[in-house]
């Protein structure tokens, strides 16, 4: 055989053949960083302990995690994999418990990069108090997966009887966001394009569990969502679709960092459509809006929380009103927005 031998510093196809190399990789990278009593046996499935009481229900989610580049200011694909799944559970009112992790590795991925990612992933999991209890590793030929991606599933529990969703949303309800919008989208974009001016801009990638837990016990909480792909505007369009009500946003109240705004202006992006990875959009009854805001603002992640808008029965669109009453409609995201000005 004249094939080049396994390179000890990068992932090779041989790492995916199920043999010794694969076992070594799993042990050296994944188990070492993520090890816990349920993962340790490396069995085909994880056997989980029973829940202590009968007044909780299971919440289960699944997520694919891709990002380019793999590392960016404020995070990397490892932390993102944990936060993305944890946040999906959290906004459903759940406390995340267990994750599974499928790693798809590209031939040629430097092993030290892989290790940095898994270290970051493990750190994020510890911070969120979740365990990775099952996993799988595949290696794909060069060029097929941009270095690395993850498939992540998560299980959480939440108290029985929570009624979160669009069904209970009413005209007049308040729309809250937990912090500045667009940070993640801009940070990743700047990293991807190597603009080299990301100094002041970092992804907001973080667990939103403290934010969601803070509101869970509050009456009048209708709906929570983490505004990832498509940003705040896309979440609110989903709400509009589901409820038939309009949403009127007040532009002056929108928390957007100056640095994000100026980059957006320059590149022609709208921060309301950019992804966040550590924010929550909540819809609460009007009379509870102040209380919800107070609870969020008391948390480190919620310092920038704002009430940004209202469910409006007078129209069925997403309407942005500026400081002097001028109105702009925010349309559903285009695949590739083209200028409409003629």
């Amino acid at each position: 055989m004249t094939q080049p031998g396994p390179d000890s510093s990068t992932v090779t196809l041989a790492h995916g053949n199920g043999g010794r190399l694969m076992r070594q990789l799993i042990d050296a990278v994944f188990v070492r960083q993520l090890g816990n009593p349920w993962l340790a046996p490396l069995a085909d499935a994880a056997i989980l302990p029973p829940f202590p009481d009968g007044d909780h229900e299971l919440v289960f989610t699944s997520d694919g995690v891709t990002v380019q580049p793999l590392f960016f200011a404020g995070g990397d694909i490892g932390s993102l994999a944990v936060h993305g799944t944890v946040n999906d559970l959290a906004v459903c009112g759940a406390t995340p418990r267990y994750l599974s992790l499928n790693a798809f590795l590209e031939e040629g991925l430097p092993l030290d990069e892989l290790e940095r990612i898994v270290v970051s992933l493990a750190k994020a999991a510890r911070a969120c108090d979740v365990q990775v209890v099952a996993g799988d590793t595949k290696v794909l030929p060069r060029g097929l997966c941009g270095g690395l991606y993850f498939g992540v599933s998560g299980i959480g529990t939440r108290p029985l009887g929570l009624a979160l969703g669009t069904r209970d949303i009413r005209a007049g309800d308040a729309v809250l966001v937990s912090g500045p919008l667009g940070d993640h989208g801009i940070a990743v974009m700047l990293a991807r394009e190597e603009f080299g001016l990301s100094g002041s801009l970092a992804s907001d990638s973080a667990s939103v569990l403290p934010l969601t837990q803070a509101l869970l016990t509050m009456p009048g909480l209708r709906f929570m969502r983490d505004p990832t792909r498509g940003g705040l505007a896309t979440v609110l369009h989903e709400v509009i679709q589901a409820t038939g009500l309009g949403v009127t946003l007040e532009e002056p109240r929108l928390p957007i960092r100056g640095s994000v705004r100026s980059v957006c202006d320059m590149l022609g992006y709208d921060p309301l459509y950019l992804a966040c990875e550590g924010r929550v959009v909540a819809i609460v009854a009007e009379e509870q809006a102040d209380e919800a805001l107070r609870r969020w603002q008391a948390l480190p992640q919620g310092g920038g929380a704002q009430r940004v808008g209202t469910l409006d029965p007078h129209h069925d669109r997403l309407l942005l009103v500026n400081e002097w009453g001028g109105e702009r409609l925010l349309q559903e995201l285009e695949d590739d927005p083209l200028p409409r000005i003629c």
Partner: protein
Amino acid sequence: MALPTPGEWLERIRALPRPASGRLRILNVCGGHERTITHAGLRKVLPDYLELIPGPGCPVCVCPEEDIHAAVALSLADDVIVATFGDMVRVPCNAPRREPRSLQAARALGGRVVPVASPGEVLTLARQHPGKRVVFFAAGFETTTAPIAALFSRTDLPDNLLLLLSARQTWPAIAHLLADGAPGFDALIAPGHVATIMGAEQWRFVAEAHGLPTAVAGFTPGLILAGLHAVLRQALDRAPRLDNAYPQCVTAAGNRRAQALMGALFEITDAEWRGIGPLPDSGYGCAATLTERDARRHFPGVFEAAYARRGEMPPGCDCAEVVLGRIRPPQCRLYGSACRPESPVGPCMVSEEGACRIWWSHGVPPTHEASSGRIAATPVDAAPGETAPIERAPDQEAQRWVLAGVVQGVGFRPFVQRLASRLELAGQVRNSGGKVVIEAQGSADRLDAFERALLAEAPRLARPRLARRETIPATLGPPDAARPNAARPFVIQPSDGDPGGAIQLPLDSPVCPACLAEIHDPQDRHHGYPFTHCDQCGPRYSVIERLPYDRARTSLKAFPLCPECRREYDDPHSRRFHAQSIGCPQCGPRLEFVQGKRTLSDPREALEAAIAALADGRIVAVKGVGGYHLMADAGNPAALATLRERKHRPHKPFAVMVPWQGEDGLGAVRRHARLDPAAAEALLADERPVVLLPLRANHGLEAGLAPGLDEVGMLLPYAPLHHLLLEALARPLVATSANLGGEPIIADRAMAAQRLGRVADAFLHHDRPILRPVDDGIRRPIAGRARPLRLGRGAAPLELELPWRLPRTLLAVGAQQKSTVCLAWEARLVLSPHIGELSALRTQQAFARQIETLPGLYGVRPELVLHDAHPGYHSTRWARDSGLACREVAHHHAHAAALCGEHGRFREPTLVFTWDGTGLGPDGSLWGGEALLGRPGRWRRHASFAPFALPGGEAAIREPWRLAATQGWQSGLEGPVAEGTDEALALLRAAWERRLNAPACSAVGRLFDAAAALLVPMPRVSHEAQAAMRLEALAKGDGQGLELPHQRDPDGVLRCDWRPLIRHLHDARLGPERRAADFHATLVRVLCRQAGAARDATGVETLGLTGGVFQNRRLTEAAVAALEEDGFRVLLHERLPCNDAAISVGQVMECLARLSRHEEE
């Protein structure tokens, strides 16, 4: 026994007395009869009380268009030969101009069409061409149908012989004429040839069921005279019966063998008659035994397509009326002008048996009113079978006119009433189905004078068109001998019913001089009253709730007339006779002034308070005709600054309403601006638009009205309220539409209070609701005409006539900015007023309202929606969500089609420069510098500009300095190529190099942006076209044009390389004014270069300029001059704006061309 000679018959007829009814109108039903009558000159030699009327006598003429469409299509099919009788070859159908419009035209295109003289020839043809299917296209009455039956009853026919049967029975057409109770004739000579086959008895029903004298007649002059003699005798005897005046050939029962043959092969069906519609039991179809020879079954696709065109008639063609005997050939609008035997429009001018052809070849000129040529109808109230004629006075005649066009809501009925009174005519006038129907009785010369005056003296706002004229019985009796001068009534009847889609909307009109004089007259009860109107002025469209236009259907229904006004309303001699928008201080709308918590409900106090507030520098929202204006003293810089700040409108020019001064009202305008005749005419037109006028050197107006520009938009007062305000203040007022940026004009009191609370210091309301908000129009004098930039009050809805009828009702939803919608059906197109910029919610709501209400007004329902190609336009999304069938029209194709459509150019090739900001091209890139060659429905991109990036998409348009920078980089310049911070430039450069969110574009409008930003500091524009307007205003002198290099791209599109121009603009040795002028001059050279290349390649001589870029007066005027110098004919818009407001019209024009080409479906 020898038959009498024609001379002898004539003697016998002359020997008979005149019938008691005064005259006898005799219909013939046979082209052969009409030929003989006309060519033998029988009308001249017969007594003048005999009127000979040509009727449905020609099978070719009544052959429906769909059959001709089908035959044309079949002739072009590979394996088909169409055989038909000679006349049929030339009968035109209303095909789109690029398609063959007759079998003859099809033959010129390679279609196989063989004219035959007898059915036997068809058999020979089929045997000679065994490899082809020979379709016998057979139109005929019974006489012809019999030999067709004989042919197809043969058993030795080859398999390739098929039949397209378009045969008709004659009697159902006569039954149809008789059925409507007013047949328009008193006697019938029945067709001899038909009767030889079908028997004379077939016609007995005319005499016995309908009581009309009837005779079957032959075809020589003598035989026809015999028939005429017979019916005249019957009339004199008051004994209608059936005479057989052609016993030589005709028997009572006819040719039973032929009838049996026809019965075996054909079945009686309902059938279409061209222009008339379906008549029951009037046609022959192939019976079951003939199914396998029925061309309709062999080519179902062809017939389906052809039937989709059922009922289409060439626009203006009155053949149907001629065929039914309702008008004479010369009364057709096209007779002898557009329609002649060598280029016939309608079938009656083609066939040797068609009345028009017969009359024309006999030398009857157009508009000639043959003495016996007027048609008359029997009284509508006469019971069927009643023959006793009503006594008529010989000197009294009566006529009925039907007038179409703009005739409702413009004081037309009162005008008719006054005119009739002046001429002492009796009768009535009424609105009916969007038209006005007038019946008048009097002496012939008075009736003639009346008709002339109807059109010549019509009210100012009316645009009447004579749709029909007919003679009716003079039923009112002679003037009373005892009281010869006694006035007989001429009355205005109430409108009947729903006008359907035929209505033309009346438009809002400025106060007339007579009303203005009353407002100024201290003795008049209208003194100082701001809602004084009459039938010649006042609100129309803006107050219409639904049609027809009557007070009860307008927002004035809330104001019952006081006795004084009611008296004027009822007085036929008053200007307010049946004028719907009148009122006075007692009963009409009232003003109210609101400032903060202070409300003044006394109208005079309210007006005075508003005047005082304006004098004091306040901003007052004033409710006018189509909406609110924000008004302020145009000479008060502080007021202007406040208004700009509150409206968040830092730069966009404000329109100024200038006092009406001097003899022609333009005195004050002239003090500020230079006025050419076109601009003066536009200012004074009923539209009273804002006209952009070049300022005089010492114009004396505030610079803040139009910062950086040397033009100001001015308008004259149009509502009485404006006159009162401006007279009191005696100075120009800013009069800008009351809205917040990009939103529709505010027309509702609650909305005004809600939306303008932070803008206006005070409100001058009135309580006449505005049901249809409409902005002021805007015009700019360019190349000798005041061309519209926006169609507003008094000009919109705009109606255009289409060159042919649409098969379906279209709704075109236009573009995104300068949104308009367009409704088109039949041969009509109606363009909505300006709606606005569709990114605002309220504009979208106004857009939805317009779409909802416009079709309702006209009583039509859209079946196909046309929209732009841009997926992000609200209009496109609306269309795709509408649930209706949709068609996409590329933005610049629509631009080009709008221009060609406006000029009626659907066939000839035109090179149209469509230069604008950006629009989505068919290739998915952003266009806007395109030269399109072709015609509506078929465009080829001839030339364009080298593409460039729009860094940041829309952001590049809002901040032109970005384009200045990237264009500079693309032109090879380095260093500080534009304003901007280092950080911003670095980011921009990085984004530009990576093509991040930077779509490719070839739009000239964006070149203007870049150039303007290079020459004038311009960090951010606040309104559309701001950069281009600044650049135009900056340019001084003629400028020197650069010759820019051009290259063909791989698709063969000639691309202008604009980079030398950008480098030239960086040449600081030249002043910015000069460089701006050079920029314009260079674009003119680009136009000439690209036009020249197109002419060299294709010979095209006619050019068009459209797209928002050509709102630029400097560019357009220089371009027209240079292109005309080069020998081109240059088309510009005259009735439509050249900007995106015309897109909806273009969508219709494009679709009109495509639909008629069968490219769709």
